Each structure stands twice: as C-alpha cells, then as structure tokens.
C-alpha cells in the first residue's frame, strides 16, 4: 500500500513542480539554518570532558584585605594566590590536585635554519595529566617527585612534535624554551578540550598548549606568564619574580574528587582554611568560598557566546515561518485536489487511506527538504568556519547531527501536512462529484 501511496505522491508532486519546489526549498532552508546554528551551539556548549566533568572542581577563596572593586557580584576572585593554591594542593584533601597557570614563550629550534617561534605553554603539576585524561602518545607524563625537584623536563603536544621532530618519538631529546633546555619526557596525542575549561583567561575556545612544564621548573627558568594577575593591598610594587609571596591571584587550582559524598567535606575544608586565614589576619574579608564542577564553572563564566544563542533562536523562528508557509502551500495543494479525493472516496477509499496517502506526500517533501537542508547546513558550517571566532574551526556536522537533521525535516513536514491532509479528507464525495 505504501508503495502505491508513494507513486501517487510522486505523480502529484510532479504535476505542480513550482509549488513542490517552493515547499522543498522552504523546508530545506529552515532546516539548513536550524542545523547550522544548532551544530555551532552543540559544539560550543558541549561538555569538554564528559567522563570527568562531574568529578573535577575549581576551588575559589576570598583572600583580599579589602574590596578594591575589581570583582563584583559578591564573588571571590577567579584565581588563587600562590600561597593559598599551594597550601590547598599540599593538604592533598582531594583525590588529585594540580596548580597551574598559562604561559607563553619562544621555542628555538635546534635546526638554525628554522626561525624561532612563540608557543602557548602550561605550567602545572603531575596530576594534570591523569586528572584531565590527557592522551600520551610517546613516553609518559612527569611524577610528583619530579615536580618537587623542579626537573628541567617538558611534555610537548603532537603539533609541536610534528613541527620540531617531524612526528617522531622525541622523548629524551631537548626542546629550547624561553632560553632553557628542557628534556622531553612525553609527547601527547592531539588533545583539544573545548571549551578550554581549565583556564578561560585566554580564549574560551583556545587550542590546547604546545608545551607543558612543571610549575616549579617554569618559575626557575622565569617562564613568561600569559594570563591575568590581580593584586591588592599595600604591596605596591610587585615584581614578576616574587609572585610566590605577593598578594596577587594568578594561578588556578583544579581538584578531582571521585566520591560525590566527599564534595561537601572538601568545601568545609575550604571554609575552614579561609576561617583560619582570617584568624591569623591574612584574610580580611568575610569567608567566601566556591567549589564549582566543570559545567558549573563554564556556566558561571558564560562561555557560550551570546550571538550563538541569538542565532539559534533566529534560525528556529525562521524555521517556524518556513513550516507555516509549507502548511499553507500544502493546504492549497491538497484542497485543489478535492475533486480527485472525491472520486477516490466514491470508489471506496476510506478516509484513513486518503489521509495516509496525503501524509505520505508531505513526508516526501520532508525527505527532499531534509536532504536539501543537509546540503545547506554543510554550506552554512563552511561559512561559519570562515569566521574569525576561535570556536569556528570546530564547527563540523557529525553523524548524530546529520541524522537529527533529516529526522527533524521529516517529522516537521509530516506534522505540517497533518492539518491540510485532514482538511482534504473532510470532502463529501457526493458534493464533489456533483460539481464536476
């Protein structure tokens, strides 16, 4: 029966080509616009680290002596001071913990024909790698002992390894960063969590760093920082070399807490630490601690650009208009065939059969519109990738979105076809035959 409906539908669609084309085009454009913007939203608001995100937390403290107006919303500073971060990390109250900060510096290739270039760096601790599931291709990450002894070592990204060593196993060789020779202990597989959740100072959708260096080592070789630094109090002149003791927040601490029950305990620990600091006069402002997990942290920082949301709503509105348009056109198309429907009804076709046939016709428009929509979405995403935003390069249609696109087109047009089909079925056969 379905085959017969299909044949009838195709024949009917062929009869009014302009109208059919208009319907397919409207559905395709609506679907294309929706899928383009939804894919971008899906890419930018995705969980950067789904396996771990509910177990990773970002502690914040209020360490200042008086409010200098730099922060508002009653929130503690976005980063920690070296003193506090180290105290919290060394207490080892979480399953894993790593203090970190961003950096930037020149890499001088051993091959003198190659010009020096600048890379983004991350100065961090051993737990960074297991905590964030960083994939290591060659060698291994460093150990806590190597953190302690401030070894001159580094882990480099796949990109940097390709650039310096043509993708070979470069462990044991040296990389000259910021004027210091560092022994490569590990090489990573391509790794780019997006958003760049663990440090949002640079760009929320920045690429991962190219070189990872133990935090202590980075301080020894005077690695340049790339991030924000906020100072308070009567320190006055703060030198970059004495940041460890300065009243400045400039490092981030991430902790992993595997047991959800222990999260409250960790927060109590933060409160306790803060109270203690207030008792010694180090902290002056009321205790104000935060312990957000990855997704709470991203929400708090509103990393998803506002324009992306506006575009999604615009596309949805556009799609609704396209659908209303399609309903109107289908109504016209189906009602025009009242006579044909009358004949079929008089010859014994049930209302249900006529209805099913008309809905099949709507479905075909949906399939064609869906396919057209995929083409338009691919084109739309290609346009998005040409945009300057850091997240633009991530905008690709994956299989889930592809299937969703076609499914959405079919469902939407079938729903759009219901009213016209129902109206067309209401035809009284006798009346239609009489007017012929």
């Amino acid at each position, binding site marked *: 029966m379905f085959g017969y409906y299909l044949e009838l539908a195709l024949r009917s669609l062929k009869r009014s080509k302009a109208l059919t084309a208009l319907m397919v085009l409207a559905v395709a454009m609506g679907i294309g616009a929706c899928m383009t913007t939804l894919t971008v939203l899906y890419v930018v608001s995705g969980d950067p680290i789904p396996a771990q995100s509910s177990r990773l937390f970002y502690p914040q403290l209020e360490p200042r002596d008086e409010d200098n107006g730099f922060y508002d919303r009653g929130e503690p500073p976005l980063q920690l001071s070296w003193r506090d971060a180290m105290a919290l990390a060394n207490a080892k109250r979480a399953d894993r913990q790593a203090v970190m900060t961003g950096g930037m510096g020149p890499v001088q290739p051993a091959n003198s024909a190659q010009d020096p270039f600048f890379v983004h760096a991350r100065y961090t601790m051993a737990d960074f790698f297991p905590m964030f599931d960083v994939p290591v291709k060659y060698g291994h990450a460093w150990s806590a002992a190597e953190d302690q002894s401030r070894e001159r070592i580094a882990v480099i990204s796949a990109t940097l390894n390709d650039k310096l060593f043509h993708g070979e196993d470069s462990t044991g060789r040296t990389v000259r960063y910021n004027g210091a020779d560092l022994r490569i202990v590990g090489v990573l597989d391509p790794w780019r969590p997006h958003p760049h959740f663990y440090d949002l100072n640079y760009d929320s959708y920045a690429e991962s760093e190219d070189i990872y260096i133990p935090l202590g080592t980075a301080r020894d070789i005077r690695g340049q920082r790339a991030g924000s630094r906020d100072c308070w109090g009567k320190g*006055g*002149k703060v*030198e970059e070399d004495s940041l460890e003791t300065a009243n400045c927040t400039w490092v981030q601490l991430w902790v992993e807490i595997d047991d959800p029950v222990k999260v409250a305990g960790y927060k109590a620990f933060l409160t306790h630490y803060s109270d203690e600091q207030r008792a010694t006069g180090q902290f002056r402002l009321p205790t104000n601690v935060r312990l957000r997990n990855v997704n709470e942290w991203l929400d708090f920082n509103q990393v998803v650009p506002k*324009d992306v949301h*506006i575009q999604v709503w615009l596309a949805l509105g556009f799609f609704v*208009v396209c659908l209303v348009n399609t309903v*109107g*056109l289908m109504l016209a198309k189906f009602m025009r065939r009242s006579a044909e429907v009358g004949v079929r009804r008089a010859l014994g076709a049930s209302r249900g059969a006529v209805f099913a046939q008309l809905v099949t016709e709507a479905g075909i428009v949906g399939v064609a519109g869906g396919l057209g929509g995929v083409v338009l979405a691919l084109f739309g995403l290609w346009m998005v990738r040409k*945009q300057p935003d850091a997240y633009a390069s991530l905008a690709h249609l994956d299989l889930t979105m592809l299937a969703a696109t076609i499914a959405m087109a079919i469902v939407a047009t079938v729903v759009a076809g219901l*009213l016209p089909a129902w109206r067309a079925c209401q035809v009284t056969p006798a009346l239609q035959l009489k007017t012929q």
Partner: protein
Amino acid sequence: MNLQIKPILTALRRHKSGTILIALQIALTLAIVCNALFIVHQRVERVHRPTGLDETNLITVQNRYVGKPDTFIPLMKTDVATLRNIPGVESAYVTNAFPLRRGGWSTGIQTEPDKTKDSLPSALYFVDEQALATLGVKLLAGRNFNPSEVVTVGPQTTPAPAQVIITKAIADKLFPKGDALGKTLYYAKGKPSTVIGIVAKLTVPWIDFDHMDNVTLMPVRFDSGYQQFLVRTKPGQQDNVFKAIPKALYASNRMRVLPEKTGIRTFETIRAAAYEADRGMAILMTVVCAVLLTITAAGIVGLSSFWVGQRRKQIGVRRALGARRSDILGYFLTENFLIALGGVIVGTMLALGLSQWMLKYFEMPRVSFTYVAVGVLLLLVLGQLAVFAPALRASKVSPVEATRA
C-alpha cells in the same frame, strides 16, 4: 473604487485555515524581521564607531624579541629610530596598546592619594612625544609630552609617571567643572600624576567595555619583550612603507618574531578584524530577513493563486452581473490587505514581545518604534505586490465562466 469589506470578510470566514496561516506567517515574519533588522542596525553602528584616530595612512607592527636580555629598552629605541628613518614615514612610536587592538591594560584612577574604592577605570597607552601626531589625535587643552618626560617602567609594574594626558571623557567625569588641566590623579597608591593635556576622543583597546572613551596616555617606555609600533606614513606612501618595515626591522635585528598574519597590518585591517564577528552577524541577519520575506511573499502568491483558481466560477458570475475588472482586482487586493493588516497587528505585538524577551535574556536594547513601523509598512507593501499577479489573473476571468458547470 469602493471597498467591499463586508463581503470579503464573509468570504474569508469560509477560508479560515488559509487566512489564519497567511496572517500568522506575516505576523511571525514581521516579529523576526524588525528585530533582526534592528540588530543589523546596531551592529552596523558598532562597526563604524569612531576611535578618535585618523585611521588612514596608519600601520601597526606587532613585535616580540627572542632572547632574554636584562632590558629591552635599547632594542626598542633602535627599532623606533629605524622605523622613523624609513622613507615615507611621518612619525612612529612604540606602545603597549591602541584602539581596536582588543588587548591592553586598564587601571583605576583616584583623585585622592590613599583612596582605594570607587575608582574610575581607564585604559593605559604608553606613548612618547610623537604619539599624538602618529595617532592623529588633537589636543583640546594643555600640551604634548616632552621627550625628557618619557620614563622607563619595569615589567609588570604599575606605571605612575609625573605627567599624563587624559581624554575629555575622563576629565568630564572627574572634574565636571571643566578644570581638569593641572589637577593631580593617582594611578598607583600615593604616586601623583599631573594632567598636562586633554584630548577630544580616543577609545580603549577593547570593543566591549563599559567606559569606551576612558583613556590615559602615559609618557612611558615599558620594558617588555613584546610591543606594538604605530607608524604614520605620508599620504600615498602606505604601500611602500608597509613593504619596507619588515626588511628594515630584520636588517637591524634578526632576533625577533613578527607574526606572519598579525605582524604588520594597516589600521583598516585592524578595524576589519576587530569587527569581523559583528559584520558576520549583520550579514547573516540581513540574508535571513531577505529569505524570510521572499518565502512569505512566495507563500502569499501560492495561496492566493489557489483561491483565485477555486473561485473562478464566482468571479465569472460577478463579472456577468456587471463587475468591472478593476472591481475584481480591487477585491483581491483588499482581501490581502485585510489579512495582512490582521497579521501586522498581531506581528507588532509579537515583535514587541520578542524585543522584551531579548532585553531580558540578552540585555539588548528595546527595538526602536521606527523599525516596527518600517517592518509593518514593508509587509503590507510586500503583501500587495505578492497578491498582484494572482489578482490580475483573477480580473481576467471571463464572464463566460459563470455559464460553465
């Protein structure tokens, strides 16, 4: 032409779904189009926001030195001299930031030495005596810096030179009486800076900032391995100078990185890059509006054609009873006008509702009434244009149709 509104309404009652669909489509289109065009308007306004600079014949150079000498100051001085010596260069200086660079330094200004609260935010530009000429910024009052006033400041230290030049925006906020010249400001605790000049307008490096016009020029040479040079060329010399800059800089010192794409740029490029996302959004919105209007027009054509086809007989009867062609044409035009009118009334409410919602969730300004009015007019005209062809066809129906079965 007398309008036959009553019979039209009676006829429309017999085509409820079609009427409602067209009206609904017009309403939604109006709501989306006037809000989208309003966003376009805002973005276009942003893209053309003035910086206070004379943006022609201005070239920016982004430079990083490789290596870690004790101080970068001699290297910077050599580079500035090298740039000033390139034929076709009018003036040049070294700085940390400039308008539309999207990266820079801001601090709070105080009018009392020890106050820490309620400071007025200001962007800081480190300059020398050639900066005003290079930027093309005019002094409203006071004087320019002397070369002898330029001081060296170490890395990551808050600079607080003895003299500063501020924008009129800061002067007006801190000294509403207009007597800012010669007053003392504090950029660091307990370190006074005297206002020696006021410039009319100069914007901060960022494109989203609460105080776009709060800028302080400081006679400072900032000791850092990373800096920007600004170069003003003589008219007609921009292309030559653009090509000469990398050669001259590399010839004087190879231990540097001038990033491939962002190393040397004209100010036009800087402006285009700064507002690329806004321009993209404006283009997207415009395209969507155009497509939306086309689709709505096509929908009106489709449904009206169907109605005309359905009523051929009635039209024939009316013609046979003495109605002129213009009466039939008028009938369909009026019918469409009534439907569109219903649509735009609902659409206006939807548009205002949508605007209210965007105000709440996206902190966007409320859509201006002009835009709604223009949108209403646009859709009414569009409806009339779209219905004209089917209506014309209807008016050509012969009275003979009345006699056909």
